[in-house]
């Protein structure tokens, strides 16, 4: 297991920034959520990559936010 917890600390701090980065992408997250929710309605069929477009938008927004916090934090 880790000796002095260096890797643990690094990975943990990255994970801790997740909610913050997600909060910065509220619009894209809502769009993705709506798309998935729509597929649960009667007649909808949820399959792989049904909402790939919305997710890509969310992912790029999230990555940009993560880069910002990383630059700002360090």
């Amino acid at each position, binding site marked *: *297991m*880790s000796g002095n917890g260096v*890797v*643990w600390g690094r*990975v*943990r701090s990255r*994970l801790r920034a*997740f*909610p913050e980065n*997600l*909060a910065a992408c509220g619009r*894209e*997250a*809502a769009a*993705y*959520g*709506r798309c*998935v*929710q729509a*597929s*649960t309605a009667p007649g909808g069929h*949820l*399959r*792989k*990559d*049904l*909402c790939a477009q919305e*997710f890509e938008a*969310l*992912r790029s927004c*999230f990555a940009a936010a993560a880069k910002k916090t990383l630059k700002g934090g360090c």
Partner: protein
Amino acid sequence: MQRVIQLWLLWRRPPTAGVPGKNIGLRRATSGVSPPGSTSPRALNIFDRDLKRKQKNWAARQPETMKFDYLKDEVGSRIADRVYDIARDFPLALNVGCGRGYIAQHLNKETVGKFFQADIAEHALKNTLETEIPTVSVLADEEFLPFRENTFDLVVSSLSLHWVNDLPRALEQIHYVLKPDGVFIGAMFGGDTLYELRCSLQLAETEREGGFSPHVSPFTAVNDLGHLLGRAGFNTLTVDTDEIQVNYPGMFELMEDLQGMGESNCAWNRKALLHRDTMLAAAAVYGEMYRNEDGSVPATYQIYYMIGWKYHDSQARPAQRGSATVSFGELGKVNNLISQEKKSK
């Protein structure tokens, strides 16, 4: 090694699940000593008890354990309420799967004379909460209680039986260690617990990866509870349900809290990896589908409280067939009947 993976993937562990060969070998190792008493015909091995002990120890060693105590504290106080409702005191009581002892802090010396706290995690037992009742801490598994028959007047169990592999056996053990006319008061998570988390993860995993695997452990249904308690030999059963809804800023905070409570997944069939894409997608779905007006997301904990008694001659029994003195048809005139009886007395 395990720690690193655990952190990044929150609930995931190195793969052990799903391979039949490995499972059989492990099952043999864990159930090496055949314990006395009855075993269920199909002894189940759903949860990795060793891992659960490690998780509970880890959670108990965290710097701020009080931060994650809120749920167990609340349920512990509700169980203590039920203990007070019974018009008796209990010289000797046992808490099965006590964690840091959330029930003892709400009880007083007059109601419970001496309290035995049993748990599988030694660090949790070392940091028990303050209580005025004299306690003895015992390191014991819920399925293998190291006590003699007819020892305890009261056995309580708060939110720990949902990690037990062989629940019928555990309840039979509890029945065994109870004195006649002793009572068991337990609280378990019910089927609706964390349904929002379960659904969000399921939808996100289906959309992102094309399939899904279980991430929230299976809970007992309320009908099964009645059967289980009856089968274990308990009398005069009472089961009631309660729902506690806790609001969180988002899904990640919920998962962090669950991990801090020591409630991380330890089922053998858990998936080793939870992709961060899937986590992100699930958080987005959770927020959109279940969000409250103020932006927080709710998580539901459904708790079943059960009370069962061990048989004793003094307990009320159903009347003999054919011993009725009034018929149901006269129910409308019940007031007259009561006043007639009073007059005749």
